[in-house]
């Protein structure tokens, strides 16, 4: 198909490079430099979608970020992305796109039946309809709404694109590269400031690309090109196109999304798809321009009705006519500029101006070109279903209340201009208190909260001359403050046509007997009548009206609808617009893809993976790994076809009968050093620490100030003023912060230093009745007898030439030792232990066997120390000193903590000795009691006891102390299990703790 609406010359597209693309399965051609929208319009395609609610046909309304209609599903390089604005998507060879919101097709849309069921979908329809009968919701209403609504389909495939994050700092960040952005960037750059200039479109220049002005004896466009070319050569300037600053956060932090690859058929190797910039700027200059606003009239959503500025942009930037019989409907001079461009390109427009007798240089030019101008005229309604065919027009009275006789004229597009709305989103996001500017009927930034300045038309300044003067001044002044340089730049001369005052007119009254839909919000299908209903039903706050009608809540965030909505509310309420106020602007200004926000932190990159020095040995020996916090730990070592259950049972059994070795490198380790180290430990732990001799370890429990157990572990006195503290793997970082808090803030007089040594040491636990024999062979020169190295003893030794620390501590409840060597020697240590251990039938064991061993011994771990238990609950009250004070002690006196029936750890065995109890099960007295069945406690950890060969669990049970011997039920509704159980002591194996001391 030929590009019938492309004029033969002009525009900024590259006519030498033809690109083929597909829309809704049909093939077309466009040029390099086109957007999908301009290429479709060049081919005469105006029907691109269906509206959200009524499924009315939708065309193009704008030419950029403000587009409410032309949202497509994009297919690129085997991937698909929804919610793409055709007006922003640059054309590339092989691009494919489809309409959204159309079922089964854009030309025949079943959802359009909603249009005839308007009564079905009035304002608040989400809240009112579909509520009854309840059973209809899942079967009928929801599937219907889901099928009929939505803005495309999210791919369920893994996203293979790469997204990057970047942090940047600058003196001046400038949002927008129109006349004000270029001027301020240039002035600041010349003063030596570091400048980032961001433009959301592919081309720099903003309004200068389409306006008929002269700057410094050049066309506006040529001037812009010159400035950009010079800025690009300056080392202190970063110039970015395709980059949207979408959020203004605290302390002058702004976030920008740079589309690196969206305009290419395929992302280049090693390139990201998008790059998210976090920019901290000393000063922010907002030159985001303004968006033309529509005038509201009947059927104003018909394809072919669009903003007059968009029509001008399609013509001047892309060389595309949006129609050949254009009707321009305006209340200000901007419409004339579009009409003049049509005329210059050989097309005769008709201009309807709501004003009675406007006079200006622009209007004079239009008159000189013999353009047909009708004053005091309005469009009453667009006619045509899938495309504008005619317009009903009429004269209008001076008070804008009475329409004259309706006339019908032929046209193929209606270009609307209802004056301009400054884009104040960023300023408002920064906390700027915006104010209503009567002369332009719109809000502009007021008092700044952060270091931001809004310039040009974003600030309600529509004269180019004034924009340049203020922007050069702002760029120069702000940079001067930072760099102390002052390179007085001469401001170029400006030639522009003066315009006249716009008409404060925004909505055409309905003619008698007609009930045309007059839309305010084009994306969410919110019409004048919806706002009227909301107000009639008592909604007053603009925030409530917004949510009830969904005005401005679509992905375009009401860029073209907000002000007209406010005008309507204020008119009905007989208030002025500033009294109604605008709704809050929140980031993002325009949709940002989730991938860009997530960045590189996906999959294995979402957090660091920490591996012990023995990791490769574990891998080679069939370890199956489990995530333990950020660590990877062997869960079990698989032999043959063993299951987790079989392997962990074998490993645990071997510890109880022979000897096992477990990688305990992940335990948190903190060096505590200084003359007051013992005093610190004494205040941090619940038990006494002042008399621990050198060469001895002690188990300790630390509390939070609220009395809840924070962590447990052993700490060893290595030398006079040096202690080696261990923490659980999970709490290592918190415990270090906790110690630092008390040392720096609460007891700064204590002379102690703490530092994490977790990574410095590799650790191996050797456990089992044969562990002493093994240790003796590893350290033949040491006396490791029960007398030489008693329980909780410590010594240093030489492991085949490597310095080692030996602790006699036990988590498994067996005779056990922990050997630490410097990390680099970890693998050497492990291999030696395995080699020497062969004689003792050593087997490595993983976390699953480790859990089994500690559970049947009744040793508490993270599942009991869960942030809800005090020492008593864990049967650790024996470690709570009555004599000295410590962190959290005072809280233990709270009545709930001293109650006679306080919860306490118990053991749980199923009566059938067969059924494993799921962790998290609730313990109840009566399995058949009506819901909610009173919960007496919960199962914290479960294992298969290798000692007794039956299931065993630990539980935290109310009045646990007096419940031993009771029969209860463990219920797990999740697993659909009800298990009769008996409560036993938590110390299921070796209750006197003889083995560890043997």
């Amino acid at each position, binding site marked *: 198909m030929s590009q019938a609406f492309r004029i033969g010359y002009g525009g900024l597209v590259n006519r030498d490079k033809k690109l083929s693309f597909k829309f809704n399965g049909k093939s077309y051609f466009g040029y390099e430099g086109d957007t999908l929208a301009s290429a479709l319009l060049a081919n005469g395609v105006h029907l691109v979608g269906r509206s959200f609610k009524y499924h009315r046909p939708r065309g193009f309304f704008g030419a950029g970020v403000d587009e409410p209609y032309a949202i497509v599903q994009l297919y690129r390089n085997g991937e698909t992305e929804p919610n793409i604005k055709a007006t922003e998507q640059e054309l590339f060879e092989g691009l494919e796109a489809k309409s959204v919101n159309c079922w089964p097709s854009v030309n025949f849309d079943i959802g359009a039946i909603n249009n005839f069921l308007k009564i079905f979908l009035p304002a608040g329809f989400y809240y009112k309809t579909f509520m009854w009968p309840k059973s209809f919701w899942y079967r009928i209403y929801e599937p219907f709404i889901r099928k009929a609504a939505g803005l495309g389909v999210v791919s369920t495939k893994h996203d293979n694109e790469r997204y990057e994050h970047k942090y940047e700092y600058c003196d001046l960040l400038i949002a927008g590269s129109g006349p004000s952005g270029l001027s301020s960037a240039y002035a600041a750059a010349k003063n030596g400031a570091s400048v980032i200039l961001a433009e959301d479109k592919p081309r720099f220049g903003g309004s200068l690309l389409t306006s008929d002005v002269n700057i410094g004896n050049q066309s506006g466009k040529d001037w812009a090109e010159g400035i950009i070319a010079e800025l690009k050569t300056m080392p202190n300037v970063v110039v970015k196109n395709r980059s949207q600053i979408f959020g203004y*956060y*605290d*302390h002058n932090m702004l976030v920008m999304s740079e589309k690196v690859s969206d305009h290419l058929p395929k992302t280049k190797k090693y390139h990201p798809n998008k790059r998210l910039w976090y920019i901290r700027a000393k000063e922010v200059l907002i030159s985001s321009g303004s968006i033309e606003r529509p005038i509201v009239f009947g059927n104003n959503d018909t394809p072919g009705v669009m903003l007059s500025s968009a029509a001008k942009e399609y013509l001047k930037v892309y060389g595309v006519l949006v129609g050949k019989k254009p009707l321009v409907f305006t209340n200000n001079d901007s419409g004339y500029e579009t009409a003049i461009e049509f005329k210059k390109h050989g097309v005769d427009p008709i201009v309807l101006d709501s004003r009675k007798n406007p006079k200006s240089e622009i209007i004079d030019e239009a008159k000189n070109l013999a353009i047909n101008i009708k004053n005091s005229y309005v469009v009453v309604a667009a006619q045509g279903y899938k495309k504008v065919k005619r317009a009903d027009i009429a004269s209008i009275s001076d008070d804008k209340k009475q329409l004259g006789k309706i006339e019908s004229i032929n046209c193929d597009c209606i270009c609307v201009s209802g004056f301009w709305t400054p884009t104040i989103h960023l300023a408002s996001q920064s906390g700027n208190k915006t104010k209503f500017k009567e002369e332009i009927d719109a809000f502009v930034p007021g008092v700044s909260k952060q270091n931001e300045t809004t310039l040009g038309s974003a600030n309600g300044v529509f004269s180019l001359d004034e924009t340049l003067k203020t922007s050069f001044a702002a760029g120069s002044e702000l940079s001067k403050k930072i760099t102390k340089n002052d390179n007085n730049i001469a401001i170029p001369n400006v030639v522009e046509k003066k315009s006249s005052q716009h008409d404060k007119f925004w909505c055409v009254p309905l003619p008698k007997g007609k009930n045309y839909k007059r839309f305010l919000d084009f994306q969410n299908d919110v019409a004048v009548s919806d706002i009227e209903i909301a107000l009639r039903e008592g909604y007053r706050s603009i925030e409530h009206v917004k949510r009830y009608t969904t005005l401005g809540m679509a992905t375009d965030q009401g860029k073209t609808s907000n002000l007209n909505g406010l005008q309507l509310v204020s008119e009905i309420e007989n208030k002025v617009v500033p009294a109604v106020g605008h709704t809050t602007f929140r980031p993002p200004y325009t949709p940002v893809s989730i991938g860009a926000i997530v960045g590189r932190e996906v999959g294995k990159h979402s957090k660091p993976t920490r591996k012990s020095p023995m990791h490769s040995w574990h891998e080679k020996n069939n370890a199956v790994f489990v995530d333990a916090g950020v660590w990877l730990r062997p869960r079990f070592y698989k032999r043959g076809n063993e299951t987790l259950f079989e392997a962990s049972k074998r490993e645990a059994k071997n510890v109880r009968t022979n000897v096992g070795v477990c990688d305990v490198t992940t335990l948190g380790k903190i060096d505590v050093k200084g003359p007051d180290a013992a005093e610190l430990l004494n205040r941090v732990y619940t038990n006494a620490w002042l008399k621990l001799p050198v060469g001895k370890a002690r188990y300790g429990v630390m509390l939070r100030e609220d009395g809840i157990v924070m962590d447990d572990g052993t700490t060893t006195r290595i030398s006079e003023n040096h202690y080696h503290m261990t923490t659980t793997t999970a709490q290592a970082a918190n415990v270090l*912060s906790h110690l*630092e*808090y008390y040392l*720096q803030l609460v007891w*700064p007089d204590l002379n102690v230093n703490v530092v994490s040594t977790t990574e410095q040491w590799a650790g191996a636990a050797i456990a089992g009745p044969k562990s002493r024999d093994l240790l003796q062979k590893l350290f033949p020169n040491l006396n490791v007898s029960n007398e030489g190295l008693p329980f909780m003893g410590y010594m240093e030794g030489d492991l085949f030439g490597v310095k080692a620390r030996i602790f006699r501590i036990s988590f498994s409840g067996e005779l056990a030792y922990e050997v630490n060597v410097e990390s680099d020697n970890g693998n050497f240590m492990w291999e030696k232990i395995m080699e020497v251990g062969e004689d003792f039938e050593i087997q490595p064991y993983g976390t699953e066997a480790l859990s089994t061993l500690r559970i049947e011994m009744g040793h508490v771990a993270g599942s009991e120390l869960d942030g809800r238990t005090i020492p008593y609950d864990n049967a650790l009250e024996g470690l709570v000193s009555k004599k000295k004070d410590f962190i959290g002690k005072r*809280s233990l006196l709270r009545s709930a903590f001293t109650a006679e029936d306080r919860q306490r750890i118990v053991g749980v065995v199923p009566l059938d000795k067969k059924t494993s109890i799921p962790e998290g099960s609730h313990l109840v007295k009566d399995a058949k009691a009506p819901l909610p069945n009173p919960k007496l406690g919960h199962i914290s950890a479960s294992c298969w006891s290798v000692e007794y060969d039956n299931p065993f669990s630990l539980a935290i049970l109310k009045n646990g102390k007096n419940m031993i011997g009771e029969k209860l039920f463990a219920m797990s509704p999740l697993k659909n299990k009800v298990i009769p159980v008996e409560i036993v002591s938590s110390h299921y194996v070796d209750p006197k703790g003889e083995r560890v001391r043997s």
Partner: protein
Amino acid sequence: MLYINCPHCGMRSQNEFSYGGDASVKRPELNKEVSDQEWDDFVYNRKSLRGKHLELWQHISGCRQWIKVERDTSTHEIFRTFKANEEVA
């Protein structure tokens, strides 16, 4: 994201810090008789001010020092920052 002036390191972004609550709370001295009310005020009761607030932050991904930050809780404006041992006048 806040921009916090660490008295030890200079201006750093919020994601290097972790929040530590009200800095005006004083822990009762060790081994001192403390009433239930006093203890509750120390452990639990906070004013949750709107406006100027002295609070603790730890420069966890930096110098690891706890610092005091004077910040407006509604505007997020930071007025002054102090080292842990500095008296706030």
